[in-house]
């Protein structure tokens, strides 16, 4: 900001006044709860044992180290995030490249692609649980049995349940990758491809050496945004499996929720949520760094 004299200074004060209600709401709805979360992660707050309430220091964080269920949840969070983001990216890019080949009517694909994104995740979870993946009556099971394969209890056995929640998340969010990458592909300069073709570069070489480097910023943005959302996924898994069977699909977010709101141990639940926050910030920090490093 430059000092531009009294007139502008006055305007700045006025501007501050105008945005202050917004800032206040923002502080009340995001900053305060966040600060409260961090504060409570250093406390013993357990409704089941109110007589132990008080300052806990780092106890909650120390407990996490020896909590097998935390490490299990963390591992699942990693598997869930990496595989669902990878699938979204690969399938989204593949679809975008395919649709680019279609000369007219691309708009139709864009509209169809929006549909899963606008559905509430909890609706998506319930829809897959009751309509698609239910044993015996579900559409997926019906197709599998019609093709002559053994019926699979998708949400009722440990590994298929984890695969299912990854696929559900991929199904809902691949269109996002598809739309972003399609837009990016559409804006690529044609003359570079023309020149490559004259130099007799084949399709694969053109894709590796021209398309990919040119759409790298879009890819990184997709990876950043999708990773942040996948790390904090909740509603669809909650509705589809509730983290089960057993703890087979209990990612960190679900474990934090359960600790706080089912077990009523808000101190430890807060510590789990803070650890998820740190992980999410760390991962996105690294990805952002990757993006700017490549650019320079």
């Amino acid at each position, binding site marked *: 900001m430059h000092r531009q004299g009294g007139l502008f200074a006055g305007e700045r004060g006025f501007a501050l006044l105008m945005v202050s209600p917004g800032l206040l709401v923002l502080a009340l709805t995001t900053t305060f709860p966040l600060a409260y979360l961090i504060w409570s992660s250093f406390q013993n707050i357990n409704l089941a044992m109110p007589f132990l309430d008080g300052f806990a220091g780092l106890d909650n964080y120390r407990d996490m180290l020896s909590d097998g269920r935390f490490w299990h949840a963390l591992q699942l969070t990693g598997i869930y995030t990496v595989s669902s983001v990878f699938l979204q990216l690969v399938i989204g890019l593949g679809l975008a490249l395919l649709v680019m080949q279609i000369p007219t009517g691309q708009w139709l694909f864009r509209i169809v692609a929006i549909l899963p994104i606008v559905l509430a995740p909890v609706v998506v979870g319930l829809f897959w649980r009751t309509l698609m993946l239910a044993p015996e009556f579900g559409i997926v099971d019906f197709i599998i049995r019609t093709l002559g394969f053994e019926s699979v209890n998708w949400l009722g056995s440990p590994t298929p349940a984890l695969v299912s929640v990854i696929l559900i998340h991929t199904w809902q969010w691949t269109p996002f990758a598809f739309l972003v990458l399609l837009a990016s592909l559409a804006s690529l300069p044609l003359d570079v491809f023309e020149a490559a073709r004259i130099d007799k570069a084949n399709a694969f070489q053109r894709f590796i050496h021209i398309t990919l480097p040119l759409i790298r910023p879009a890819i990184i943005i997709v990876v950043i945004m999708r990773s942040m959302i996948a790390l904090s996924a909740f509603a669809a898994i909650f509705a589809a499996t509730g983290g*089960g069977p*057993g*703890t087979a699909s209990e990612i960190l977010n679900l474990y934090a929720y359960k600790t706080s709101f089912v077990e009523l141990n808000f101190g430890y639940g807060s510590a789990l949520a803070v650890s998820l926050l740190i992980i999410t910030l760390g991962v996105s920090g690294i990805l952002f760094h990757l993006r700017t490093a490549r650019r320079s």
Partner: protein
Amino acid sequence: MTNRIGKSAIPISKAITRRTVLKATASGVALLSAPAILTGRAHAAGKYMDLESLRSAKIDWRQAEGSKITIGVIPAGYFKNLETVLSDFAALTGIEARLEMTPPGQIRQKAVLDLSSGTGTWASHAADPMYYPLYVANKWIDPLDAYLGNEKLTDNGWFRYEDILAGWRGVTSIDGKPYGIPYDGEATIQVYRKDVFDKLSLKPAETFDEFMSNADKAHDPENRLWGAALRGFRGAGQNMYIYPSIFRAFGGEWFNNSGKMVVNSSEAIAALEWYVKLLNNYAPQGVENWNWPDIADAFGQGTVASYIDAHSSAAIVANPEKSKVVGKIGFARWPKGPSGKRVTSIWNWSFPINGALSNKDKTATWLFIQWAASRETQVATSYAFPGAYKRTGANRTSVWALSDYRALLEAAGDNYISATTTSFAKDTDVEWRPRLPQWPAVGDTMATAIQASLVGQASVTDALNAAQRKIEGILKG
């Protein structure tokens, strides 16, 4: 939906209630209560129940007139019937009580949120008996002995608290002090397909071994008939509803001699192995996600030969509109476990008083609870209810003895009343589940372990050992 305020004079008394609130002065109340008494006289019979019989209690039903209270309940038939007859409560007391329907999956959390924040939004709510230790540890609810023993508030000669089923009173009391008054509840009983059993010359199981062998003999998945089903869905009120009965019947004790909680004893392992073996061998696929409605639906569709669950599930399996097996159903008590014990659930929904209320609202809430738990209201929401659904989970021994009530129940099928009443009398066990303030965490941990071993995520021993470690951490704080 069901406050059927028709052509009766009840709207007048409601209007008075509102005005009473506005003019809460002594003279105002005195002035306005006169027409209210007239209204009462005009409806001595009540719309759904005999108000004179309620008025025979030697208490002043109108002492909290003008109060407005909200009670959290679940959207189940037994509470919808109560909502319908609420107009009679308003006519009797001048109190405006409103039932707020909250799904069973959320009512516990909502109640805990309300109680812990001290807002007093719900004057009372349909409480899970397992939550009383938590409520009491936090002093969120009032002990009810002070209300029961106060002549101004309770005429026990009329109310007869002791008439309420003993097991239910036990489980809503802590250290002998009552904290909630049971309204509706159930016993778990064995339900089986009489036609299938007759054809195969099977008898309802007397022992756990027989239950397993009956399931084996009736099991015929080729013809879409599975041997047995029990609750498999993970939850303190789902698989951790059925497993404790098995655990206790195997001779399991939740606490050892030194008071330490033990969930991986040899009895616990045997009980869980029995459960896993039964369901893995004889239950339909997907049973690990089944709660009682799923079991009752499958039985009603004729695909399950036997199950053990709440007696109230008969409302589904014996309903000609929903079930294909009406007239082919038999009932029996829980089979005996290896220890010789039969252990039924003592599940019931009861009403506590929120400690954050004003004294006047507490009185109003207590009057509501007394009214809801009274014999008159129990009858009015059961066989005497004008709608299609009639409650079958009455809270009083005297109601279970009424011939009209028994006639309603006997229609469900063979041996229904005898199995249920014998269960209430002989098979209840207050220590059915571990009663601790930490129950929500302990119950969920056990539920996770039970489901993990059912689906093979962990062996029975590993799952219970992991639960034991986690529970030790929970209880340590």
